[in-house]
Structures are given as C-alpha cells and as structure tokens.
C-alpha cells in the first residue's frame, strides 16, 4: 500500500507555481561562522489563540526566546506529533543556538518568521511578502534564512 506521504507528494507534486518565474538570483552568503541565521517556516506558527486566516500571505515574527509557540497550520495531511514532541523537527531554534555556542554559525537572529504554507497563490509570496520580510531581517542583521516546510 502506498504510504500516506507518498500519496500526498504525488497528489500535489504536479501543481505548478502558477506564475512566470524569473531567472534565479543568489545572494552572496558570508562564511557560516560569521553569519547570523534566521528561520523562516511555512508551518503557520502562532501564539496560542491566534489563528491564521486561510489564504494568508502575511508573516509573523517571533523572538528567538519564545517557547510557547503552536503550529496553527490548517492542513490535516501531515504529521503533527513530531512538532508536539520536539519543536526542532520543524523550527530548529535550539539547534541553531547550539551551533552559535559552538562557533559553527556566527549567531542566531533575534527574530524568526512564520507563514501559512497552504496558501495556493504564490506570486505574492515572492514579489511582496519576501521583500517586506527581507527588509526586516536585514534590519536584524540576518545574513542567511533557513526555510522549512511542513
């Protein structure tokens, strides 16, 4: 029998981006040992009691020390027990802190971002959401964003 995730990957794998993609641009990254790293996750992290509206293109910022975040993503089609047991399997904030302490990365960003990954329309994410988020991250001294889906 096909595994659940394999079924999902096949069901949605052929859904196109839905807009014309420009050529890929890559920004230079400083050496990792000097870089400040932020997490950007599509897991719809939230403070308890603050749901995400369906179809949102917004982002929310969370201080690196916040430890009561919930995953408010609306999809039923992925595992949720991993995050319930260990947030780092989605939001590896403790791993980054360990890497900063050991000198593997330069530092952990003071704030990290989350969005709702099930929003279907993508162009707004690339052309509006991302530039707005980038301005804030740059202001926080971020060099590198680590993106995680669910």
């Amino acid at each position: 029998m096909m595994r659940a995730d394999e079924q999902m990957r096949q069901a949605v794998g052929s859904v196109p981006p839905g807009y014309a993609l420009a050529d890929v641009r890559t920004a230079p990254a400083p050496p990792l040992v000097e870089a400040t790293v932020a997490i950007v996750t599509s897991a719809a992290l939230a403070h308890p009691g603050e749901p995400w509206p369906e179809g949102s293109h917004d982002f929310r910022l969370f201080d690196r020390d916040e430890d009561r975040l919930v995953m408010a993503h609306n999809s039923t089609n992925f595992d949720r027990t991993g995050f319930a047991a260990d947030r780092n399997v989605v939001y590896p904030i403790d791993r980054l802190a360990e890497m900063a302490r050991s000198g593997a990365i330069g530092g952990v960003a003071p704030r990290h971002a989350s969005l709702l990954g099930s929003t279907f329309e993508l162009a707004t994410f690339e052309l509006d959401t991302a530039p707005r988020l980038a301005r804030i991250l740059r202001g926080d001294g971020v060099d590198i964003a680590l993106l995680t889906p669910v």
Partner: protein
Amino acid sequence: MCTRTVSALARGLEAAGIATVALVSNRPQAEAGRPPRALYCEFPLGRPLGRPGDAAWQRRVLDAAFALLPRRDGPVLADFGEAIHDEVDTPLACPLPPRRDPTEHPAIDEARGLRPAWERARARHGGTQVGRVVDAEGLPEAMRALVAVAEGAPWHEVEVAGGDFPTLLMDLRTYYEEAALGLSEHVPAARQAESWLYRETRAGDLVRAFYERVRQAEPAFPGLYYVIPASQVDEPLF
C-alpha cells in the same frame, strides 16, 4: 504544498539580498519552483528535519543544508540521501481507557479517560497544541456537536464551539495525538498516532460517522477536506 511556498519565498528573499537554503519535502515541486538552494529531504511531511528528539540527526540535516550556501549556480537542488517514511499502516499500539460511564457516549467517555495520558504528555513535552477553540477540559462537552451530526442532525443546525467544525476536529485530533505521546514510551513514527486515532479509538469512529454524514450533505459542508486526513479515507480527496 509547503514546498511551493518556501520555494517562492526563497526566491524573493534572495532577490532582496538574503542568502537562503530551503529544506524541501516534495522534489517535483522544488524542481518546478526553483528555489536558489534547496536540500530535498525525503522525510515525513510535518517533520522537515526528520527525527524529533534526535539532535545529532537534526544537526546533520542542517550541516548538509548549510553546505549548499557557497553555491551561486542556482537553482541548486541536492538530496540528503537518507530517507525516513511514515508508518500510516502501523497504528500506534497503546491501551485505551476502560469505559467509566456506560451512560455516556463512548467517544466522550474515552476522551475523558485519556486525560491523564494527555496531562503526562503536556508535562513531558512542555506544553500543548490543543486550544484552537476548546481546551482539554472543554473538549469532551464540545464533542457533543459531532455526536449530534453523526447521529443525523443537519450540520448547519448544530451549534459548535468556535462556530467551525474543522477547527474543533483539529483540537480533537491534537488532544488524542498528544494523549498518544503520553501513552507511549517513545515518540511514535510519523502518522502512527494519526492511524491509532482514526482506526482504533471511539473518537475515530465518531469522526468517521461525522464524515459520512457531511460528505453528501445539503447544504454542502464547507471544509470537507479538513475533517479527516486523506490517508484515512478510501476515496481520493483531490
């Protein structure tokens, strides 16, 4: 769908001067979405770093992702090389509480009986994800709305906590899956607690009965997709 989203975000962040590396969970979507630097991890959906509670494994994933950062020849799509799969066909084996009140609906009685296990999980893991529209204390009573629909009441005439059945159903799922964490000595493989809920428990029977009532209902039920995971029903949801 999240791989589509992180791909678009990565493109936009890079264009705005932030270097990125994306963990992606759907290879065809990453190929189409062309994030500048991506590491394909064939891990369970919902566990992009693979193994909860395994810091060394998570660190290996991060090291592999960050190793892509010097690359400027994007789109770069590398493979982590080791896979982890869900175990949807192996429901978690854990005991269910005995009936406490034979006059109560079996699912509601069961939910009350699982409260100690849920409390253990909350203490062990430092919190809960329950609470979108009801907390653990209020869940059993809120389940009466599901019972009413499952027993034939028109869904649109039943008052539900928060005004929204799918959100209540997510609280129910979360409560049960957290209770499963409290009943298990280890973190279950992906989807094991999900299959335990929907295939082994009275609450799962209730959700299935609710689903059968609303799937053909008039007026059409909004959010049928959010009632039960696609992996737990026979007919395709897409």
